[in-house]
């Protein structure tokens, strides 16, 4: 019996394990001492993600570490954080893909007020999301059958339907860091999703909202949002399409 139990354990050793130093930015609003860095050294495996390392810290080393996560598989978009200087989802970033000779630096996403450790106040982000009317706008009576759409009509806005509202793009934008009034890439992506939907009739209204000093014209095409998006949405391209739509549809 023991022999059969030991065997899987040596098999387990086949997964390479390594030492990882996690450098996490901590902030406790109640201590009043500002933010500070804390390092943890962990033994992790080749199959582990940054989220697993944070779990190990929270569950085994320091229960006071605060971070958001829900599905833990890249669908819900709650664990966006700055890992080694770039916005990523902790649940989609494998430790083995990072440079482990140096500490893995984990910070909260930038530009939103930090509530505790890696948790930021998402309210400004969702406020600008709500402002672009991210819902189907139609007029007249409801049709008695579904609203049909061709494959080509769907393909126009396919990319921007993938957004999971994790805020990785908006908080990677240098314009958003210095100007919190800017709508941000995520709101524009979700406006794009309806502006170019053939079934929707609110495009003019949304373009009017985004044709603003703090709208699409604040975009400086730094491409940080496109690089940061965990769903691979070509965000800067979507913003450029909204810019062009404003210009062409106003003539």
């Amino acid at each position: 019996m023991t022999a059969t139990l030991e065997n899987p354990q040596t098999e387990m050793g086949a997964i390479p394990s390594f030492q990882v130093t996690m450098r996490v930015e901590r902030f406790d609003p109640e201590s009043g001492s500002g933010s500070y860095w804390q390092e943890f050294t962990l033994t992790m495996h080749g199959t582990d993600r940054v989220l697993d390392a944070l779990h190990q810290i929270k569950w085994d080393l320091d229960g006071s570490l605060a971070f958001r996560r829900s599905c833990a598989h890249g669908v819900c978009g709650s664990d966006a954080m700055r890992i080694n200087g770039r916005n990523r989802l902790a649940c989609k970033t494998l430790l083995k893909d990072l440079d482990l000779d140096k500490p893995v630096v984990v910070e909260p996403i930038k530009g939103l007020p930090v509530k505790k450790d890696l948790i930021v106040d998402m309210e400004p982000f969702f406020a600008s999301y709500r402002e672009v009317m991210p819902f189907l706008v139609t007029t007249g009576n409801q049709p008695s059958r579904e609203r049909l759409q061709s494959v080509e009509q769907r393909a126009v806005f396919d990319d921007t339907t993938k957004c999971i509202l994790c805020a990785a793009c908006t908080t990677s934008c240098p314009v958003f860091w210095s100007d919190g009034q800017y709508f941000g890439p995520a709101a524009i992506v979700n406006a794009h999703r309806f502006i170019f939907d053939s079934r929707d009739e609110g495009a003019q209204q949304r373009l009017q909202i985004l044709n603003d000093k703090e709208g699409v014209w604040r975009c400086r095409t730094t491409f940080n949002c496109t690089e940061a998006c965990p769903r691979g949405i070509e965000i800067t391209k979507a913003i450029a399409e909204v810019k062009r739509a404003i210009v062409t549809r106003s003539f």
Partner: protein
Amino acid sequence: MASAPAAPPSPAPVPAPRSSRGRSTLYRGTEGMWSWVLHRITGVGLFLFLLVHVLDTAMVRVSPEVYNDVIGTYKTPIMGVMEAGLVAAVIFHAFNGIRIILVDFLAKGPRYQRVMFWVVIGLTVVLMAGFLPRHLGNVFGGGH
């Protein structure tokens, strides 16, 4: 109570917290972000140059002698090196401006922004390679 939750056995001792208020790291952008940073720096630099340039050219309204005196102070090696920087800034800013226009107006622009950035850098380097030997020869070789 505040320090009560002693850390359970950990593989390595956890160092004491270090205060680092506002010392968050630099965002590690890629070509897109750094081209924007360069564009801003060269843009502000060119604006300041034009401001000075308008003023020194306006001296000709005072008198040709004053104008010559002001322009004469520019004929130093330090100003010569700054002129080289000025030309580099103009070339980069001009080509990157075209890149931004293409990104905004071509449907495929955003997809090729990275390639276009390196084309901009390449063109800047090539033009500077043609300009620098002659310019620095004039500045340091005492051409005129």
